[in-house]
């Protein structure tokens, strides 16, 4: 039992290390291409510390380097990071300090200062934990079976990745600033290569593949006419392909039902309109802030 625990633990360590290494290479590429593209050294460094979300950092810098406005860069980065919201929800219970409540033995003994300290610690844990919510840390946490191991995996991956990512970006910046003629080294091709490598796993499914393909066509087609940065945002129109197979079908079914109902009411007015009661709640429900 003990050795089993140890082997799974070391397997987790090894996997985290591998992921950090892979991400460090992305970070180094990000730092190098940003500086080589002409940005000051502190831009990739500050972004890595404050934003700490690889895809959006690369996207924002890409928009700016292609001549787009900072506003478009922020918008692109923000859209990319919207996925962190569901991630944060998925690991919300993981980002809590391990509660070692000694049951409620003597409630009178608990001093207010002690309670305050515990609440403060919980908030600090949440605030720090939220910053290291990434694709990787969430994936590692959710792969574990019990809460304690989830927590351990989340923090291990999150904090290690934060250090690895930032160190790698600094190293990349140093390397990138050594290269003067970036185009001769083909560094401008490294940028789309990084993006493709990042997005490819998600393209295994047909639905995102169709949306991404459509979006790419939209973006390239609009590049000659729109200001830089906007074509990429316009690519989000590709998401409409997500709905096409479902929406017309639903609408067709709805109209058909409406038609039959109209025919029925025309024939015999006494028929109760049950359909209304059945349809209404399912259409109005599902708000985001549901309690």
């Amino acid at each position, binding site marked *: 039992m003990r050795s089993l625990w140890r082997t799974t633990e070391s397997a987790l360590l090894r996997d985290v290390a591998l992921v950090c290494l892979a991400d460090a290479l992305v970070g180094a590429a990000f730092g190098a291409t940003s500086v080589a593209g002409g940005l000051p050294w502190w831009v990739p460094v500050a972004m890595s510390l404050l934003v700490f979300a690889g895809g959006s950092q690369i996207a924002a810098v890409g928009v700016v380097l*292609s001549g787009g406005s900072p506003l478009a860069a922020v918008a692109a980065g923000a859209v990319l990071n919207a996925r962190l919201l569901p991630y944060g929800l998925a690991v919300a219970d993981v980002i809590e300090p391990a509660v070692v409540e000694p049951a409620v033995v003597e409630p009178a003994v608990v001093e207010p200062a002690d309670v305050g300290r515990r609440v403060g610690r919980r908030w600090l844990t949440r605030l720090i934990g939220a910053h290291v919510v990434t694709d990787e840390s969430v994936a590692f946490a959710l792969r574990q079976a019990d809460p304690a191991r989830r927590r351990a995996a989340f923090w291990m991956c999150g904090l290690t990745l934060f250090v690895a990512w930032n160190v790698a970006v600094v190293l990349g910046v140093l390397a990138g600033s050594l290269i003067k003629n970036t185009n001769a080294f083909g560094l401008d091709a490294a940028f789309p290569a990084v993006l493709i490598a990042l997005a490819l796993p998600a393209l295994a499914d047909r639905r995102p593949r169709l949306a*991404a393909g459509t979006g790419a066509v939209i973006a390239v087609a609009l590049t000659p006419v729109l200001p830089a940065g906007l074509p990429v945002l316009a690519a989000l129109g590709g998401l409409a392909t997500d709905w096409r197979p479902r929406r017309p079908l639903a609408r067709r079914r709805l109209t058909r039902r409406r038609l039959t109902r109209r025919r029925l009411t025309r024939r015999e007015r006494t028929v109760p309109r049950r359909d209304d009661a059945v349809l209404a709640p399912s259409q109005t429900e599902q708000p985001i*802030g549901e309690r």
Partner: protein
Amino acid sequence: MPLTAIVALAGITYGFRLVGPLCRDRVTLPPAAQRLFTDGATVLLIALAATSALTAGHGFAGWARPAGAGVAAVLAARRAPFPVIVLAAACTTALLRLAGLP
């Protein structure tokens, strides 16, 4: 890229991250919204890859860069390691430029 833009993006990003830990019992996302978020990220990455591979400014980037990106796409589809993908793309483009292709 001004510092204000970086701080703005950092703030928005941190906001997205903080919603879960702060209101974990009060917020539930419909699966459709979750799907939209992750697909939106993929669409943006691929669109950015396509525009940065094919275009420079408002025009065509020349053949060397798309060729490098194409090599990267093929290698990525074959699950090549990340450094191989990036290096192959850069080398392809560099060699094509050396050969005189823009």
